[in-house]
């Protein structure tokens, strides 16, 4: 991958991390490390803890997420995050935007190729 494409890919990921975190939480609550692992496994976009945890903290601060503390077998209590109603609305809006943009871009690319 050339440097220019690498930079573009970075910018693309930057814009998608929040959507991906919200999407992971759509089906139920999850704790931080679980979200990181699921993103690595499912999204395969190399999101790591340093990209995910600050976004989680910001979303929690902005009341898009609530947290529930559960005693852990070892170490500090585990914090499960869950979407609030506004968080769910935000996710739906972002998904709509994403679908619209990706459809248009796909159309543009295929039109260009044809």
């Amino acid at each position: 991958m050339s440097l220019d494409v690498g930079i573009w890919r970075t910018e693309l990921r930057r814009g998608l991390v929040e959507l991906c975190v919200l999407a992971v939480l759509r089906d139920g609550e999850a704790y931080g490390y679980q979200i990181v692992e699921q993103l690595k496994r499912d999204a395969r976009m190399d999101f790591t803890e340093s990209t995910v945890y600050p976004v989680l903290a910001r979303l929690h601060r902005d009341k898009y997420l609530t947290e529930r503390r559960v005693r852990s077998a070892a170490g500090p209590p585990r914090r499960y995050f869950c979407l609030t109603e506004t968080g769910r609305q935000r996710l739906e809006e972002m998904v709509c935007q994403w679908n619209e943009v990706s459809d248009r871009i796909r159309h543009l690319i295929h039109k260009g190729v044809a």
Partner: protein
Amino acid sequence: MTTAVSLDRSLQHLIDLRLDSLERILMDSGVSRAERMEIVQAVEDQIFEMLEQQSGEATRESVLQLLRSLDPPEAYHNEDARFDLLERVPRRTRASVTAERSLSDGPRFSNMPPRAPGIAITSMILGIVSLPLMIIWPLGLPLSIAAFICGIIALPMIARSQGRLCGSWMAIVGLVAFGLYFVGAVCLLYFAS
């Protein structure tokens, strides 16, 4: 299977050093206290989760290896730097450099190696140069006094830098040279009179 992780104090200290270092980076980046606490706690949770998943008792080596596998504190600097760093620098290299530094020398703010401040170097040079000029005291005296002042300023500056600055020995050389100059000058005056 979940197993309870009990860490002895030295291993807990390694983890605490990493978390302290992370908190400082976040503070430097202007992250609010509440968010800082959240992020640090999330990383701590992850460390304990990973320890739980490890088979066998945690050792110094296994904890160090685990910390090396995490993103370094510098990766949290701010959102722009975070992505750039992840994209351009190999993960293992970054992690190992940070882990080695933060665990062997205590927490620092960045990946930069410690440097000697100019004022400490100046103190040493002025102090050393002033000694042979003892014979021409109108020239040597101001140099020696300047070495003393520079040394006095440099020492607390280095002490407060939390590892970012080094070279306190240079400031001490400057102060010792001032002392030698003072004693030598008194002796010269005594024998000359």
